């Protein structure tokens, strides 16, 4: 078979093997690549950073296990940011299969802070510094209901505590007491937050999304409906960079460690596409 024909007929298992290799090798021999934060991520960082002391951050961790590698680093980075700056945090999810992941991210980050805390004031205390509201279906209920009363939508939190007895919930009643709502999602949920919560109650919405949805969300970022935007693992790495650079929070950076693998994988996929197209052009010319 001529070389030109071979270029268009590489066995798929060879492609799978090469892709796996370029992903695995940088993980085994790691190098953390420095990423430069872009404007949409910086805007989100600034918005979270500027939450007033009497207002809270609502973090919607509506990412499914399928997209965990992309979005979980965002959740961890935002939580580290919020806790390092002593912002009040309310965490919720909109679909039941995301509960376990939100719980996991909270356990990880609160553990990181509490291991280093020397006093009770330094610690991240449930009920005082953060509340895990949990889940209530359908998504429309919390989106519209929290405009009136958060405790009416979530009478009990994830752990079964009465929310109106928690210290944090005495101060945070509804969206008027919320600085920004950051939605981490793999679907069109951020658009729903804008359509229902922002339209009626004026709450600011920031977004962390999978790269698949990223291109679709830029029109909303351009109009200011999204205060800031993190897209994919690269967006997560940029936020991690900002948190470490500005707040000196030096913990494991899941997204940043993957940047070299991401780079090589991109390059190899582009090479495959170019090889395929070169072969295609020469075959077309021959015909």
């Amino acid at each position, binding site marked *: 078979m001529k070389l030109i024909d071979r270029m268009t007929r590489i066995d798929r298992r060879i*492609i799978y093997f090469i892709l796996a290799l370029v992903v695995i090798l940088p993980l085994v021999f790691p190098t953390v690549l420095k990423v*430069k934060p872009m404007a949409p991520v910086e805007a989100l960082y600034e918005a979270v950073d500027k939450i007033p002391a009497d207002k809270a951050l609502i973090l919607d961790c509506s990412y499914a296990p399928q997209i965990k590698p992309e979005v979980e680093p965002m959740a961890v980075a935002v939580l580290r940011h919020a806790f390092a700056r002593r912002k009040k945090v309310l965490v919720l999810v909109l679909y039941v299969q995301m509960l376990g992941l939100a719980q996991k991210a909270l356990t990880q980050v609160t553990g990181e802070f509490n291991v280093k805390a020397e006093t009770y004031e330094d610690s991240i205390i449930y009920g005082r510094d953060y509340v895990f509201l949990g889940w209530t279906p*359908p998504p429309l*209920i919390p989106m*519209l209901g929290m405009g009136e009363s958060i405790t009416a939508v979530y009478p009990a939190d994830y752990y079964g505590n009465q929310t109106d007895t928690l210290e944090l919930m005495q101060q945070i009643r509804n969206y008027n007491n919320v600085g920004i709502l950051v939605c981490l999602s793999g679907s069109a949920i951020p658009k729903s937050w804008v359509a229902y919560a922002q339209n009626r109650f004026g709450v600011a919405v920031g977004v962390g999304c999978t790269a698949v949805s990223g291109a679709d969300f830029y029109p909303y970022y351009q109009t200011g409906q999204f205060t800031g935007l993190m897209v994919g693992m*690269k967006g997560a*790495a940029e936020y991690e960079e900002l948190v470490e650079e500005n707040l000196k929070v030096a913990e494991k950076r899941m997204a940043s460690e993957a940047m070299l693998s991401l780079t090589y994988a991109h390059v190899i996929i582009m090479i495959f596409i170019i090889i395929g197209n070169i072969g295609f052009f020469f075959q077309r010319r021959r015909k």
Partner: protein
Amino acid sequence: MHKRIALVLVFVFGILGIIPFLIPHPIVQNFDEFIRNDILRILAAFALALALGSLLRVHVDKIRRKRVNWQYSWILILSFAISSIIGLFGGVAGTGLLKTAIGSFHFDIQTLYENIIIPLASSMFALLAFFMASASYRAFRARSYEATLLLVSAFIVMIGFLPIASSISSRLPAFAQWVLNVPNVAGQRGILFGIALGAVATSLKIILGIERAWLGGGK
């Protein structure tokens, strides 16, 4: 007659869904809250029963009639039964009636979630990377001017957002960001208008009873 009841209900509740956006009066808002919290929320929970019932019915039927791969249906039903029992009787945090630990080995619902659901779901989606690489190699051809444009735009975004982009050119990341902020926004916004207008039209047709596909077959 049966369909007419459903059509009247969809019209009435459609109007009840629109009104709270237009009338901020407390009576309207409180009634809206009642519908959301005390009716819709409970209906959403019961809707799960419908979905589960259908799933189990399909697999029980498969086992009874010994259809192709019927043996796997046993696995589904057994794993569903075991996880439901662990969850319902073991509780959300493993503090229910059923003990969900034998020594240091825990098997509460959160452990099942972290060690069965997360790995399986993430593995299924991780496969997509291989398929995408293979499909891109085979099918992504610059056959026409439009396809070439798509290819070039994809390459700009792919290279521009890598950490090494600034090593290639200091302007490349900014250029990639500009492609996303300006021409991408223009194209996506045009499509967005079409989708939004179509969705609003379909919603109106459903409320007014013109669109009846959701009713299903039968009388």
